[in-house]
């Protein structure tokens, strides 16, 4: 037993190649690569209609709802569970919110239609509904030890039809005008707002990179070369600001602008144009992705979720309350279903009976394509979001090319299986 504290010199870095120096997960690089190839193929195939501001805008707002739930599904799958009820739960939350803003607040509370308090009340009702139902699922799974597959399969049938019961099967709408701003096209930040958001987000990302580097230096850990940090920061900035620029380039149609000016009692100046900018729903996704990533990587809760997925016995023996953890994971999933319900119903501008149908499969597929292992213990938030984006791009790209719906599903199904197979091979090769 020597008492000498070892000095930790970093390993020789001479032979490291470009990507290794950047220390980006090669898996993530592969996914980004696949996504870019996919976009380019569709772009060429559609004679340049795929990568237009308009289509990028549509893609982002279509992806948000599934992507939000996929971040929660990562936690569920990492802890070796599954949630088949997310689409149905989304429908129940949506129904609760729709009834709140069309019946409860205007009639019972006497606030009338489009009152400023309506949207916040509805959102709170929705989130409480989601959390309570999710926690209940978690309790059945964690404490009564009923397999998650069964609980949520039952949940799928129950909540889909509770939603039907709440609305008597009717389509409820139009929803509150403030509420609708969460849906995408009806609520965007405008060009200036989007640039401010983009610059703030870039600044924050670079600040995080810097603080991570400083922290490593403080503890005398090896850090990547300075040029690599700059390249990484540059790539992050380009991605964020590039997306903002594209979304800003999607111009609001002239007739719509005229109506907006008329609503304010003004006349639109000649030659006036304005871009949509970043939709609020995308902002919500960005905020959720950030929070979920912080939870996954930097909180005890996240550490325990991954530890439990890696070895439930070890987690329990380390004093982690794995039962309560299950409740928390499903409660988070429920909250995210509710937020997705806000985005999904606001995008439609009404609550429909079939809202969220088959979303459970899209969400699970997004998480799995994004590298979440069903065996538990592995998965990333950004992977799931990228997975959702890839799925959505594939689907809408095929629609633009003119592939009929049944064939679209055949392709998506094959891609799902293939993606997991490639992942298995990748993990075998890298031994991860």
């Amino acid at each position, binding site marked *: *037993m020597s008492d*000498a504290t070892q000095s930790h010199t970093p390993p020789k870095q001479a032979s490291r190649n470009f990507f290794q120096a950047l220390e980006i997960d090669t898996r993530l690089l592969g996914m980004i690569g696949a996504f870019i190839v996919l976009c380019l193929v569709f772009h060429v195939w559609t004679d340049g209609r795929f990568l237009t501001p308009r289509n990028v805008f549509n893609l982002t707002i279509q992806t948000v709802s599934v992507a939000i739930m996929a971040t929660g599904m990562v936690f569920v799958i990492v802890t070796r569970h599954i949630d088949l009820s997310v689409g149905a739960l989304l429908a129940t939350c949506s129904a609760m919110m729709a009834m709140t803003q069309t019946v409860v607040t205007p009639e019972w509370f006497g606030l009338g239609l489009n009152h400023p308090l309506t949207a916040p009340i509805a959102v709170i009702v929705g989130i409480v509904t989601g959390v309570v139902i999710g926690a209940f699922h978690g309790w059945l799974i964690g404490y009564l030890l009923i397999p998650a597959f069964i609980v949520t399969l039952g949940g799928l049938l129950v909540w889909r039809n509770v939603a039907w019961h709440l609305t008597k099967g009717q389509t409820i709408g139009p929803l509150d005008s403030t509420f609708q701003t969460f849906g995408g096209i009806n609520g965007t930040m405008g060009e200036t707002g989007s640039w401010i958001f983009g610059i703030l987000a870039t600044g924050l990302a670079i600040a995080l990179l810097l603080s991570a580097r400083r922290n490593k230096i403080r503890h005398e850990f090896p850090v990547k070369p300075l040029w690599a940090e700059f390249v990484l920061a540059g790539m992050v900035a380009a991605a964020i600001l590039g997306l903002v620029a594209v979304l800003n380039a999607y111009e609001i149609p002239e007739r719509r602008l005229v109506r907006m000016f008329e609503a304010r009692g003004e006349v639109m100046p000649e030659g006036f144009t304005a871009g949509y900018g970043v939709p609020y729903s995308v902002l919500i996704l960005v905020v959720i992705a950030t929070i979920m990533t912080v939870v996954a990587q*930097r909180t005890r809760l996240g550490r325990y979720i*991954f*530890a439990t997925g*890696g*070895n439930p016995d*070890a987690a329990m023996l380390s*004093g982690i309350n794995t039962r309560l953890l299950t409740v928390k994971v499903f409660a988070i999933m429920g909250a995210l279903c509710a937020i997705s319900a806000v985005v999904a119903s606001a995008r439609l501008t009404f609550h429909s009976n079939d809202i969220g149908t088959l979303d459970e499969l899209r969400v699970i597929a997004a998480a799995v394509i994004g590298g979440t292992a069903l065996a538990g*213990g592995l998965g990333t938030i950004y992977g799931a979001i990228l997975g959702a984006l890839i799925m959505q791009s594939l689907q809408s790209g095929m629609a633009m090319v003119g592939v009929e719906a049944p064939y679209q599903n055949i392709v998506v199904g094959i891609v799902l299986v293939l993606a997991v197979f490639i992942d298995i091979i990748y993990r075998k090769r890298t031994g991860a």
Partner: protein
Amino acid sequence: MAQDKIDRSGTPLVEMRNMKKAFGGIHAVDGVTVDVYPGEVVGVLGHNGAGKSVLMKMLSGAIQRDSGEIYVNGELADINNPRDARRYQIETIYQYLALADNLDASANLFLGRELVTPLGLVDDARMEAETRKIMGRLTPNFRRYKTPVAGLSGGQRQSVAISRAVYFNAKILIMDEPTAALGVEETRMVAELIDELKKQGIGIFLIDHDIHQVKALCDRASVMKNGQLVGTVNVHEVTEDDLLGMIILGKKPEKAA
């Protein structure tokens, strides 16, 4: 190590009195009393299914006892889960169970007791620095701090587990076949470590199958058979055959401690 140098005049570090645990009518542990004194290694022996692991898991809080009392430093201790056990500075080193394979060494070392920043976020850098310090002492050649422990050798995994106990100042250590998966060199390392821990006045329960090992490492041995205690002997006063007789036949040697 011919003679017994342990001072057993004071209060035992841990005393488990009349412990009982049944699983569906089968008495896994049936009225067993064992104790350990500071600086002592007590071997817990027996066949598979003799109840030794269940007995130890009641001490580590992994299994709740049906009845019986646990005294730590002479005071009644209330241990119902692993967190309680940690509060009494009881640490367990399992051979296979207690590491999350998908996490790295420092995440495992601090699992359940993460160091956090003032904002309440886990402080990975500080935990890794601490891990480097403690692991550097126990296994100077260890370098793979960023790899999930699934990629480590048996000995390296064991050093993570042992580092965990050492780092958190265990007073009482339960080792469940700590050398079962280790090579010769690594086994020697664990034996040295046990000696070191003894000098610090830590009491150790050592579950083991290897009689040879028990003779070499332990001061006393408590032998169990079919959930009951055959007897506790001073290992320096009995032969390996005596111990085998106790394990296989449940026969206590004439000259008992």
